[in-house]
């Protein structure tokens, strides 16, 4: 049961972080990642628009299940989307996303040199995500 990829999209749809969490994840080039980030951002909003039931204002995709993949998205109040993909049957996706969000606030937001909405390049954040992964038993 493995997590595959993590990516973070800012509120304008630009990709600010992406990383592969396992060798089973497909090889995706940087440009492709950027495209995936912005496509997901738009589809997140379209899903709420297409639904026959209107939810809250910033409603959007929370979970996508497919036969080979599970994708979970956590949107913060400020519009940042944390997206995690994993093999089907992996549990605790929501919990892991919340932990990664805590790591983001601790490592990226409290870094005085980090600019908001810009790509995250903090070694501490990478390390914190590694810790979350090892805690949740990623093989």
């Amino acid at each position, binding site marked *: 049961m493995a997590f595959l990829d993590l990516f973070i999209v800012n509120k304008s749809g630009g990709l600010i972080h992406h990383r592969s969490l396992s060798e089973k994840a497909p090889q995706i080039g940087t440009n492709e990642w950027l495209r995936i980030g912005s496509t997901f951002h738009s589809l997140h909003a379209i*899903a709420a*628009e297409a639904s026959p039931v209107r939810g809250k204002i910033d409603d959007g*995709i929370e*979970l996508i299940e*497919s036969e080979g*993949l599970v994708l979970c998205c956590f949107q913060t109040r400020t519009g940042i989307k944390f997206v995690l993909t994993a093999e089907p049957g992996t549990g605790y996706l929501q919990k892991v996303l919340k932990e990664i969000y805590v790591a983001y606030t601790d490592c990226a937001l409290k870094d005085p040199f980090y600019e908001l909405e810009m790509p995250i390049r903090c070694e501490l954040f990478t390390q914190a995500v590694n810790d979350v992964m090892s805690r949740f038993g990623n093989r």
Partner: protein
Amino acid sequence: MVVHSINIFDKKGKILFTKAYSPVAIKQERYLLESGTAEPGSDPVTEQKKLIFGMLFSLRELVGNLTPEHSNKSLQSIQTASATVHTYETLSGLRFALYTSNDVPTCKFSERTAAGAADTPMLTSSSTTAGGGGTSSALDSTTAFGRDALVHIYSNIWVECVVRSPMYVGNSGDALVECIKSTSFEKELDSYISSLSWFQ
């Protein structure tokens, strides 16, 4: 557990059949029609249905890019805070989309049922089987699965009523829409959906 609506698209995105079941969905359609649109020749309800098709099309590509190789890439369900859409695509490109409330699992080993069984100790079933509605916890023949319902609708109702109809002219186009209206597809579909244990 509510079924909101069902939509069927052909492989080019044309809306073959659409029906709203729940009062909320019907109210939304009426609201969209009344609010009107500036462009002639397109109504907001059709636009919204086309949006569903576009979303399913793009999401399938997105998920295909993210799925590891050698895995099946077919979409099963997409969940937002307000509703879940269960999808089923046939080999011929026919797409079914069923909107339900969020407590309907997609299929037997769906992620949400595994998470649900782990989080709520009231469901006495093991973590690999799905609980039924709120009251029954054993897996029985009336357990609700959105995608399995769609597979049943395709193989038992669509194929029987539409494909085997003498008016059937191929799986896309306006003639097909007319053909569907002339069969008892809608009636059979309504009775099937009402008979599901989770319909309201």
